[in-house]
């Protein structure tokens, strides 16, 4: 009998691109890391099935219920912290009310720090670095760059954008008090048609560097407007790669776009990693492995199930995940911090370029190449999590 | 000029016209009489193609049954509908301009806008106000003029005197005669017998979707029975 994981993410609507790319990467990872090697617990396959939540919290809850009824015990989600917040609460309630059909929540991309702080619970595990950790890495890099004197922070007006802004402010102040924050603003999410005015303002403020948590069309619009306006400094971002964005930036983004991310695909770290990527490309010619954390999620889940000796008792699997250490094929150590279920791993600053790119994104010739690395980033970052364990 | 033979028409499943036969010659005023609801308006609509006709309708030798309304109109049939259908939002003048055929310019036909204004001074005074505010009678005049602007060879006029003052009724009557003098054939649908009998060359009386009487006004005056049974007078 198969071990079933439900991937509840947008498969339609404006964020469908990210969602379906993610699903493909999960399914590929499950096949390659588990099923092709004979499965788990002596032959059980791990399958990941997609459930379309249309990026709506309510619809996510419906799909969650459907998935649970159909025997899914692992819930995977990542797009939008808003949905993640709804899911983690719903799952906590569900597990409390229905001890017979408890599930685990594997969050691979929703990075709102609250999920592993005030809102943490035993059932939630985050495989991406949270916004604070990422910002820590980013600000380390900025702090080290003596050419940067003026920084502009811009983000989408919602919890994640605000978290980015708050962290950037606090950390820059601590690390480089001399840096002037010449702008710190939020714009409505998904509503700005033309980012030119923002670009003008950023140029007018004389910024040397821009920090943004924007994603999707908001990222592309902002980046393109900046470049078109003649801005040449670095733009530090969270999500400016893959899903067509890399191709759309093309030459214009070169030397400008920087990314903070856990994944290192360029230069490739090992033959295993290259083989993995090649195999993925062979299967999805148009796709990218732009979320290496997905591989990590599957690897750790598989390891935890093996360690717990069961896939059905999610408490045991959760306990096995807590504190787990593993080597990722992407060349980093993975450590699931038991206090808050936040994965600790190496973080990189990546550069958008077409030089030294072995694995490009969107078949554009452009990709992201590692510029600098922080090992086991956020290893002892503080957390306010107080977790009740079953 | 117009030759209608065995015309049938339906609204949904109700059989309204049950074999109408009539003909109109050039320059002739033909009145179509009958009680409310016998299908006189429907006859006009069927000729225009607004109601799908069955049977034969020949106009100047061409079969027009089954043609679209605008095709029929462009062949030279003008139609003045009974419920006026003034275009709201357009001025009186614009309403008149719309009477012109797509490629026709004002003054190219038998009638110019100037003629119309001379004929009905009310319209001239109201040329540039939105036509929907015109008085009931003015709207009636406008509808007639609008159709004439398109320079038809045959006009079908449905109840032109409804809502007109007695004086205006006279005016319309003489207009109709003027129309005939210019060689235009007229099919007149009327309720007011006196007018119709005054100016028509020939009359048809309709009853139950058929033509039940055909003749000159004098003949109709003589036929007490027809008037009693089909016209209630």
């Amino acid at each position: 009998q198969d071990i079933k994981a439900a991937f509840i993410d947008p498969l339609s609507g404006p964020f469908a691109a990210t969602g379906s790319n993610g699903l493909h990467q999960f399914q590929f990872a499950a096949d390659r890391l588990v099923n092709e090697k004979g499965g788990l617990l002596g032959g059980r396959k791990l399958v990941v099935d997609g459930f379309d939540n249309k990026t709506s919290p309510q619809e996510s809850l419906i799909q969650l219920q459907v998935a649970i009824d159909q025997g899914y015990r692992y819930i995977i989600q990542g797009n939008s912290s808003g949905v993640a917040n709804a899911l983690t609460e719903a799952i906590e309630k569900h597990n409390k009310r229905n001890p017979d059909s408890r599930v685990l929540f594997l969050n691979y991309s929703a990075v709102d720090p609250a999920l592993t702080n005030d809102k943490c619970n035993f059932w939630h595990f985050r495989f991406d670095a949270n916004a604070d950790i990422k910002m820590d890495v980013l600000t380390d890099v900025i702090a080290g760059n003596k050419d940067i004197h003026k920084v502009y922070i811009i983000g989408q007006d919602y919890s994640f954008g605000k978290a980015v802004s708050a962290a950037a402010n606090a950390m820059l102040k601590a690390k480089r008090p001399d840096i002037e924050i010449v702008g710190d603003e939020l714009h409505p999410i998904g509503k700005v048609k033309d980012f030119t005015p923002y670009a003008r303002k950023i140029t007018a403020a004389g910024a040397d560097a821009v920090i943004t948590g924007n994603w999707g069309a908001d990222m592309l619009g902002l980046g393109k407007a900046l470049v078109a306006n003649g801005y040449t400094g670095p733009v530090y971002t969270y999500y400016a790669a893959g899903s067509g964005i890399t191709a759309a930036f093309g030459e214009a983004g070169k030397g400008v776009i920087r990314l903070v991310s856990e994944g290192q695909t360029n230069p490739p770290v090992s033959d295993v990693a290259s083989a993995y990527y090649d195999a993925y490309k062979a299967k999805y010619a148009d796709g990218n492995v732009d979320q290496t954390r997905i591989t990590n999620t599957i690897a750790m889940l598989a390891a935890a199930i093996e360690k717990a000796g069961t896939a059905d008792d999610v408490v045991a699997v959760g306990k096995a995940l807590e504190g787990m250490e593993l080597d990722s094929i992407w060349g980093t150590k993975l450590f699931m911090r038991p206090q808050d279920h936040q994965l600790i791993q190496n973080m990189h600053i990546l550069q958008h370029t077409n030089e030294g790119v072995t694995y490009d994104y969107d078949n554009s010739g452009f990709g992201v190449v590692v510029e600098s690395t922080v090992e086991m980033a956020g290893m002892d970052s503080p957390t306010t999590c107080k977790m009740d364990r079953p | 000029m117009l030759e209608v033979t065995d015309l049938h028409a339906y609204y949904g499943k109700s059989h309204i016209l049950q074999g109408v036969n009539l003909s109109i010659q050039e320059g002739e005023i033909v009145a179509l009489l009958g009680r409310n609801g016998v299908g006189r308006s429907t006859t006009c609509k069927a000729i225009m193609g607004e109601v799908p006709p069955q049977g034969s309708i020949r106009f100047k030798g061409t079969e027009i049954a089954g043609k679209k309304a605008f095709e029929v109109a462009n062949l030279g049939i003008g139609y003045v509908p009974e419920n006026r259908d003034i275009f709201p939002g357009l001025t009186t003048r614009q309403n008149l301009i719309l009477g012109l055929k797509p490629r026709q310019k004002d003054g190219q036909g038998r009638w110019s806008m100037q003629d119309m204004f001379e004929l009905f001074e009310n319209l001239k005074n109201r040329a540039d106000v939105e036509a929907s505010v015109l008085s009931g009678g003015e709207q009636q005049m406008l509808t007639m003029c609008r159709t004439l602007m398109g320079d038809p060879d045959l006009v079908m006029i449905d109840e032109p005197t409804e809502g007109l003052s007695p004086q205006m009724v006279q005016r319309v009557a003489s207009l109709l005669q003027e129309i005939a003098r210019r060689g235009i054939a007229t099919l007149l649908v009327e309720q007011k017998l006196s007018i119709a009998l005054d100016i028509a060359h020939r009359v048809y009386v309709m009853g139950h979707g058929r033509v039940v009487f055909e003749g000159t006004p004098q003949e109709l005056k003589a036929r007490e029975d027809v008037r009693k049974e089909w016209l209630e007078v």
Partner: protein
Amino acid sequence: MTDTTHKSAVSTPASRLTLGQVAPWLFAIAFLVLLPFVFKSNAALTIMNQMMITIVFALAYNMLLGQGGMLSFGHAVYLGFGGFMCMHIMNAVEDNGLPLPLPLLPIFGGLFGLGLATIIGSFSTRRAGTVFAMISLGIGELIAACTVIIVVLFGGEEGISGDRTYGLPVFGYEFLQQIEVYYVLGFWTVLSALLMYLFSRTPVGRMANAVRDNPERAEFLGYSARWVRFYSFCASGFFAGVAGAMVAINYEILTEQSMSATQSGVILLVAFLGGVGFFFGPIIGAIVFTLLQSVLSLYTEIWQLYLGALFLATVMFFPGGLAGVLMMHVPVARLGKFGLLVMPYIKTLLPALVSVIGVSALMEIIFHYRHAPPGDEEMTLFWVTFDSHNLLAMLIAFVVAAAGFWVAKRNSGELRNAWHAANTPDGGRA
């Protein structure tokens, strides 16, 4: 009619309730009570709950559109507002230990919806038509934008969440289980539907129709078109708020999505799909739409394509919505000639269905063909597993679609004739 009305003429209805009037409601109640015995799973319950929420909301919406002729592009605002306020109440009750039983929450949702509607309606209902529609669009966008800006009230994009099991069990129920929630929502659905139905039968409700048809003339009958619109609007806001409270109870979370323009657009589609011309139309629409959205999306990624096509087809061929299609058969049933239609229906609709299946199969195959990774070319469709890159599959789907279409088309003449026959009383006016 039924035998209880024998005394009164057609025109004067009996002053007592007739069985004919009550039966549909009793039936609906019985149906709702029994449904969970058939569909037991939590998922089914969740979907049914969602369905009931949509029903109440769609009915409330149709008080505006269908009955009052007011086209709103921002009605989700009232649902959302009622819902958010209920979340706050839920949290306040939990924090302060107030004795408010959960099943009463919808009253408060309704009151808040009503309150907001009163404010907005005071200026938006001055005119009908496009002015009203555009004001509703503007207000909708405005308030929806506020949901992400005013975090205190709406919790940003995360929304406000709470716990419905906040204590105070009602008759020993703590609402831990979906089934308990189901019955609470079921009660409110029936009650709201009944009240809305009755509202449409009151003087204001009737005048709403009149104002929809001809506001000017209504004014000459002693009614201010504006006030009539305003009252309908407020009533609609109330029931939208009730639906919002139902959302709060069912999901224990409200987010900006519930208030968004998308949600407002969806409810317009739902109401129309069901048929705005009939009271029960939106109910059908809500059921069908929820099924499509929550169930169809489990089976196919391109469900929205089907949804779009369904809307186009509905609006083009059945402008009265699904309810309109049903009601077309009432005269036939009255004449007792339904039997005439059965065979032609089978002969036309069956092949048409086959054709639709063929077309959708074709779409699925093409979709799979374009998006499936190489080496993973197997797909399962209608319990058949095959290789989507095999032209034969496409060909078969195409042939099925075309053949179905051809047969349906050929038999449609027969259906048309039968339809005529069934609608014509023996020797009478149609």
